[in-house]
């Protein structure tokens, strides 16, 4: 069993990339590996309550739902949130200090910055 970390660092707007990173994370769980999704820098906006459907982009409800169902760990970097004044995230995202995020990354067998 491997530890796989998927890191989402960029804004979720004007792109399907972040939703695709989440879909990929769902897929990566299929061989019993442990997948952790990490939101940091501008990537933390992916885990906020945005309404992309207003501009005709499907919200990543299905992706987050599947990750929750598969008990995939989802974590957000506290300092990235503070810097942006983000107070609230969607459900099932754990807020961790930067050093804990770094530890998670350094303990991973595979790191995928998406």
């Amino acid at each position, binding site marked *: 069993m*491997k530890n*796989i970390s998927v890191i989402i660092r960029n804004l979720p707007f004007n792109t399907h*990339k972040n939703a695709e990173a989440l*879909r*990929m994370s769902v*897929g*990566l769980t299929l*061989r*019993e*590996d442990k997948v952790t999704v990490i939101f940091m820098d501008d990537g933390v906006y992916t885990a906020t309550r945005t309404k992309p459907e207003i501009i005709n982009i499907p919200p990543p409800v299905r992706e987050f739902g599947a990750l929750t169902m598969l008990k995939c760990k989802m974590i957000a970097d506290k300092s990235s949130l503070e810097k942006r004044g983000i107070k609230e995230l969607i459900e099932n995202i754990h807020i961790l200090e930067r050093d804990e995020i770094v530890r998670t990354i350094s303990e991973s067998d595979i790191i995928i910055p998406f």
Partner: protein
Amino acid sequence: MESKDKKNMKLGILLTTSPENENTNTVIEISKAARHEGHDVSIFLMYDGVYNVNTKDFAGLAEKGVEIAICAFNAEQRKVAKVDGILFGSQYDHACIASDVDRFISFG
């Protein structure tokens, strides 16, 4: 081709950018070098990475023994037609690559 005392390794590569990105050339050169050393190489293409199957140099890696799988869903979204020698697979194939390889590199 490979020296006998070297351990054969499995290398996995994820490519998510389209061919105009320099990642394509890097992936081609790394794959060729790894094959030259006798290592196994498996590449998974998803997102805009699926467009790479249309470039001759990239698709030619299959003839060098590189296993290439692509996310058929992303290919369908982008109207990328099937190419011989390339597996139009799923995220399950990506999970198999990640699970089976000794080293994994991501290009995005």
